[in-house]
Every structure is written in structure tokens, then in C-alpha cells.
């Protein structure tokens, strides 16, 4: 047996093996990403389920880099702002005007237009004059102005305008329809998809109580492409969700795997080492836990206990250790049959010493290999639970992102980015652990 022991041996083993080294580098990178996620976006997590928070983001936008392939139809969000003009001020109310100009060159209208005006006290009335490049115009007004409004907020104004032009309002009107109305040629062809290109002028007039200040203002011409991985139906950026999913995936994967492998190796190792009645008894216990169906059982336990991350890891470990116990037991049995162990027994060396001198050193590489392999297994199980809608509260997980993709029919609607990237992340995070596990397994057990 190699005389080199301890962590150094494993680090050497991993580094010498090409795939082990790649795996190690990937894991370091993932850990760095997790730290970045926690430190920079930790405050965003609790907002994930709060749809108002994501109002100004484009909905169902595909990844931004897609615009590289078709820039005239796929584009990102454009924001414009202006300096407000005070056009009337009295002791009873103030009136401000905000004039915006922008040039539209794309073949498609924005997916939505969001008006954002933050004031020091509530807006009392608001009217928007929308002037197209050819001079035709629409007036949008809302009964209950708020600081953030999108085109749905003006559905009655725009609906009226549409029916004036084409005689009716399409039954399934969305923000997309309203946006087309604001960007199409006035007349019968308003909604046929052609877009007026050129200089648009938007003039917003608001009425506020006296001494109100306008803190900031913006118009979002929402694109259909956003960020590295696009956005979902609520506008939540997938790339951000993925980043937020990193820390919890790694944490629970490692925690679960370490606990269940240690448990499994202890039970299986002792059982195989001692043999006889102890072996039968421990084997029986292993079997009892093994037959509990992990997934539905975790579902029930999640209901009863409402676990946090740590408890969830413990529960999964409780159901996973038998798999490792079974493998550890058979390794222990074969170690036991090796001649030098038998020789020790003949020489009357006490069994606890044989356990520490022969067993533990031989089982350690096994345990390390399976800890590495157990991480992805645990991650997949956790993400599966999350996919079923069982996520510890307050966490953003890849499984919960996919759950929301499933319930919002992402596959039917062709929002592939919402499905593809979170799943790819599960795979990407798993692969380095599998590679390291295999390389240790191969180094230790040879040719396997």
C-alpha cells in the first residue's frame, strides 16, 4: 500500500488525473460564484416571488445574445429619461411636463412600454400624449395613476383608439397588441405588424400636490431579449435566478452527501467487519430504511416539518445512507478476507485495532469517492423536490425556477431558455463532482 496518506494523496490523485483537475477547477469556480451571489444579490432572493419587484423587466425575453443573430427583430430594452419641466405651481397643486424623444428603428414594436415616475408624494392625475413619426397621435389617460404604469394600465384608452381605427378590439389583447397600436400606421392596417420607424415624441403631464418633487423618471421600451439567459413570464432574469440557486445547491449537496456517506460507511463498514449477528442486524436496519421510497417520503416529511435547508439535508441523508452502507459493507467484507487481515487476527491483534489500522485507511478513499459522487445525487433530489414545489421558503432554486416554467407552460410557448439553462446548471454543477469521484475511484480501485 502507498505510504503517502491524508489529504495530500487525494489532492495529488485528483490533480494528476486530467478530468479530476478540470473538476476541481470547476468546483472552485462554482464556489466563487456562490460567494458572489450571496454577497452581491443576497437581498434580491426574498423578492423573487414578488411580481411587482420585476415589473420594469421585459417578460419572456429571450437571451440578449440572440439579438446578435437578428438585430432588427430581437432587441433589448431601451430606457429613456428627461428633465421634468414645471409648467404650473400653486398652493393647491403642481403641474409638470416630461417630454421624451426617441428614434425607433426595429421591425417590431417593443413588447411593452413602462412609464416610471417616482415622486415625493402621490401623483393625482396623469396624461400621456404619444406622437408617432408621421404626426398622428394618441392620448393615454389612466384613472388611477401610480408611479409605475404599463400599457395594460391604459387598456381602455388604447382599446378605444384601436376600435376607432379598425372597427373592433381583438378579443385577446395583450401588452404586445397595445404596443403595436402605438407603433403601427394609423388606419385599417394598424395591427398588421408593420412598424412606423422614425422619431417618436412622448409628452407626459402629471398633476401633483404642491411642493412635490420628481425624484426620477424613465420610459422602458421593453425588448424581447434580456440578459445572459433571458427572463421568465414575470420578468425575472433567469441568469439572476441561476446565480441565486448556486449557494443552496452546493450547500445542500455537500451537506447531504457528507452526512449520508459517513453514516453509510460507519454502518456498512462495521457490519461487514464484524460479520455474524451484528452484521445481520445492521443489514436488516439498512434494509428497513432502503425500502422507504425517497421522493414521496420526503414530500410527506416536507409537509409535516416544513424543513429549512439544513433539516432538508438531514432528511435526504437519512434516506440515502443505506445505498452507501451496502457498498461499504461489501468492500469491508473483501478487505476482511485479505490475508494480512487474517494474519493479524491469528496473531491476536484486537479487532478495534485491526479496524483502525486496516479498515479505516482502506475505506477512506472509498468514502471520499462516494462523497464526491453523492453530491450530484443529492442536488438532483433537492432540485426534484423543488420542481414538485417543495422548496425551503425564501430560497431560489433551479428546481423552483423549472417548476414555475412547467406551470406556466414554457414548453408549449417555446420559452426554451426558461427550461434549458436552469437544467444545464444542474448538470454543470454535478459533472465536476462525478469526474472527481470517478478519478478517485479509478485511482484507488484500479481499472474500474
Amino acid at each position, binding site marked *: 500500500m502507498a505510504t503517502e496518506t491524508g489529504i495530500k494523496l487525494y489532492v495529488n490523485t485528483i490533480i494528476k488525473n486530467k478530468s479530476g483537475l478540470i473538476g476541481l477547477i470547476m468546483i472552485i469556480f462554482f464556489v466563487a460564484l456562490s460567494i458572489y451571489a450571496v454577497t452581491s444579490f443576497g437581498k434580491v432572493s426574498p423578492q423573487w416571488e414578488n411580481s411587482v419587484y420585476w415589473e420594469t423587466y421585459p417578460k419572456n425575453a429571450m437571451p440578449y445574445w440572440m439579438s446578435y443573430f437578428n438585430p432588427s427583430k430581437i432587441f433589448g430594452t431601451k430606457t429613456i429619461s428627461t428633465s421634468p419641466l414645471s409648467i404650473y405651481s400653486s398652493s393647491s397643486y403642481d403641474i409638470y411636463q416630461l417630454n421624451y424623444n426617441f428614434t425607433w428603428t426595429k421591425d417590431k414594436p417593443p413588447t411593452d412600454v413602462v412609464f416610471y415616475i417616482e415622486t415625493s408624494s402621490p401623483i393625482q392625475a396623469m396624461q400621456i400624449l404619444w406622437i408617432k413619426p408621421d404626426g398622428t397621435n394618441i392620448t393615454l389617460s389612466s384613472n388611477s395613476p401610480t408611479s409605475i404604469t404599463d400599457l395594460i394600465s391604459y387598456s381602455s384608452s388604447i382599446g378605444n383608439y384601436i376600435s376607432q381605427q379598425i372597427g373592433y378590439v381583438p378579443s385577446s389583447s395583450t401588452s404586445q397588441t397595445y404596443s403595436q397600436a402605438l407603433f403601427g400606421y394609423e388606419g385599417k392596417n394598424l395591427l398588421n405588424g408593420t412598424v412606423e420607424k422614425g422619431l417618436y415624441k412622448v409628452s407626459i403631464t402629471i398633476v401633483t400636490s404642491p411642493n412635490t418633487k420628481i425624484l426620477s423618471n424613465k420610459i422602458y421600451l421593453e425588448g424581447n431579449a434580456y440578459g445572459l439567459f433571458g427572463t421568465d413570464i414575470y420578468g425575472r432574469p433567469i441568469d439572476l435566478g441561476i446565480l441565486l440557486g448556486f449557494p443552496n445547491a452546493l450547500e445542500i449537496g455537500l451537506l447531504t452527501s457528507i452526512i449520508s456517506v459517513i453514516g453509510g460507511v460507519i454502518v456498512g463498514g462495521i457490519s461487514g467487519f464484524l460479520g455474524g449477528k451484528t452484521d445481520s442486524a445492521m443489514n*436488516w436496519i439498512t*434494509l*428497513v*430504511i*432502503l*425500502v*422507504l*421510497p*425517497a*421522493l*414521496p*417520503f420526503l*414530500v*410527506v*416529511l416536507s*409537509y*409535516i416539518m416544513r424543513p429549512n435547508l439544513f433539516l432538508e439535508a438531514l432528511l435526504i441523508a437519512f434516506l440515502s445512507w443505506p*445505498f452507501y452502507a*451496502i457498498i461499504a459493507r461489501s468492500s469491508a467484507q473483501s478487505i476482511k478476507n485479505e490475508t494480512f487481515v487474517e494474519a493479524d487476527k491469528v496473531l491476536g491483534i484486537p479487532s478495534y485495532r485491526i479496524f483502525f489500522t486496516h479498515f479505516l485507511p482502506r475505506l477512506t478513499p472509498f468514502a471520499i469517492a462516494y462523497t464526491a*459522487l453523492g453530491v*450530484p*445525487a443529492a442536488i*438532483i*433530489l433537492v*432540485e*426534484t423536490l423543488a*420542481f*414538485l*414545489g*417543495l422548496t425551503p421558503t425564501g430560497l431560489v432554486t433551479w428546481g423552483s425556477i*423549472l417548476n414555475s*416554467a*412547467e406551470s406556466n407552460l*414554457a*414548453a*408549449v410557448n*417555446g420559452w*426554451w431558455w426558461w*427550461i*434549458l439553462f436552469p*437544467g444545464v446548471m*444542474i*448538470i454543470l454543477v*454535478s*459533472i465536476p463532482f*462525478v*469526474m472527481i*469521484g*470517478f478519478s478517485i475511484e479509478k485511482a484507488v480501485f484500479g*481499472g*474500474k
Partner: protein
Amino acid sequence: MLKVMGYKSYLAKEIIIYITVLIAAMSLLYLLTYPVIQEVLKATVQTEAEGFKQAILKHSAGHGSINLTNINILVNKYKDSLMTAYGLNQPLYLRYFIQMKNLLTFNFGNAYFLEAPNGSHKVYVIIASYLPYTIILFTTGTLIVIFAGTLIGLLSARYAGTVWDKIVPTIAVIHSSLPTWWLGFLLIAALAYGVKVFPPGGITSIPPPKSPLMYSINMLYHMALPLLAFFIVNVGGFAYVVRSLVISTTKEDFVMTAKARGLSDSRILYRHILRTASPSISTQVALAIAGSFAGGLTTEIVFNWHGVGWLTYVAILLNDLPVILGINFVLTVILLLALFINELVKGYLDPRIKAGG
């Protein structure tokens, strides 16, 4: 020393082990879910009593004189008898025995919301009507994976040192890192909605074809994508295990002597090595089934395949705890059966086991 135990006593021993494991596992499930079970049973008693009351009211509606007090007395009596049957008004230890007996006889009470296609609210009827579809999908998938996995594992062990050697670890990585349901999701987006080659889900078309032949073909067509997902995810892991087992068996003395005897390589591999490794492979099959349960069940959700996995999902959405509990018990029994069958097969395949030890 050469005590020959024989298959029969081996069998008897295993039966005792597995029955005690069943009781222990059930007790464990019972203990861990005790508060929920009590709640579920109380709700069951409540709905049954309510149903009883409605039935009496309906029955006595035509007879003019309705004595509500009498009816309430009757209903309370009925409720008491139900409480006794479910052991709810018994001391703890009796409660345990009564409820264990109920669990072991698949009497899980009534569902909160779900009902079986025939209208029954009994949990076991509901599960029984979904279970066959899970069994069809899961068994077919498992059989294909075992067959192909064994073949690939053998080939890679035989041609060690060639490309085969690289392929198996690679597909094993896929196995260890890919959630089945996600792959299913992706396949649906690509092959059902992207290129419209396969149906996006369901067990058959709606309405289902009339003739049994067309019905089966239609069902196979619907099974193709879920099976593909199940296959891609699981075949690598199984091939890897078979390969490891075969390679470690190849290092045993008898393989060298078999070669010395002038037996051909393929004869040694397929007859001697495979046959010797088969008890271990059988164990791996049982463990693989246990391990792929979670993935297989969740796949049903994305494919809208109305089996037990899908039922679990719906029960979660509806908070229908009795159904989720019932599924736990039924799947425990199924898993136990798979492991038990493995013991039988192993005992049959390995003459050494019969000798006891």
C-alpha cells in the same frame, strides 16, 4: 462446514426477514407521520359520518316525520363505531396495532379531494387506478435499461482499452448528473413542440383508438419520449456497474484457467463471467430500481402520464395528504417486493448462497 442449507430454507429465512422489514418500515412511516395520520383519519371519520347523515336524511325525506335528534344520535353512534374501527378513541398502543393492521391491509382512509375514475374516494382505489400506468412505464423502461446496459457494459469490458472504454464512463457521468424529468421537459420542448414528431404527453390520444391493437400502438407512441428520457438517464449508470462487476470478475482465477482450457473469449465472457457476476448484477438491478424511482415518478409529471408520480404531484397541489401517505405505503411495498425478488433470483443464480453463510 459444508452444511448445505438448500433453497427452501434459504427462502424461508428471506421471507421472515422481509416480512419483519415490511412491518418495521411501516411502523417507521407510521411514527414519522403520526400527527398527519391522526388528522387524516379524523377527517375520514368526519366525511363518512356526514355521508351517513345525508343518506339517512334522503332516505327519511319521503316519510314526512324527521326527528333530527334521533338522526343525530344515530350519526354519533356511527361515528363512534368508525372511531373504534380506526382506533382513534383507543389508548396509544392499541391505536398503533389497529392502524398498522389497517395500513398492512391497504386501508388508508379517504382522500380529501381526489377521486378515482369510478367516483370512489377511498385512497387505495384511487392509487390502484393509477398504479398500472406507472408499472407499465417503469417496468418497460427498466427492462430496456437492464438489457441495453448489460450489453454495453459487457462490450466495454470485453473491448477494454478501446473507444468503448471511454464511452461508458461518459454516459455514466450523464446518469449521475441529469434529472430525468428535466430531460423529459427538454425533449418535449424539442421533439413535441419544436419539431412535432412525438405527442407532448398523455397516455393515449383523446379520444383513444377503439381497437385494442391501435390502442396499444397509440400508447407505445405516447410512451416513446418518456422511455427515451428514462433510458438516456439510466443506461449509463447501469452499464458502468455491469462493466465494473465484469472487470472485477475477470480478475478472478477461474477466468485464466478457463482460457487455458481452450474456451473461446466470448464463451468465457458470456457463459462463465456473466453467469458468475449475475447474482451481483441482480442486486444492482434492485438498487437501480430503488434509485431511479424518484426520477421515474417525476417524469410522469412533465409527460402528463397519469400514473402514481403524476398523482403525487396533483395530491401535492391539492394538499391531499391521505393520498400522499397512501402512495408512500404502496411504494414501500413495491420496493420491498423488488428487493425480495432480487433475493430469490440471487439465491437461484448463486449456488454458494444455498449453502448458507
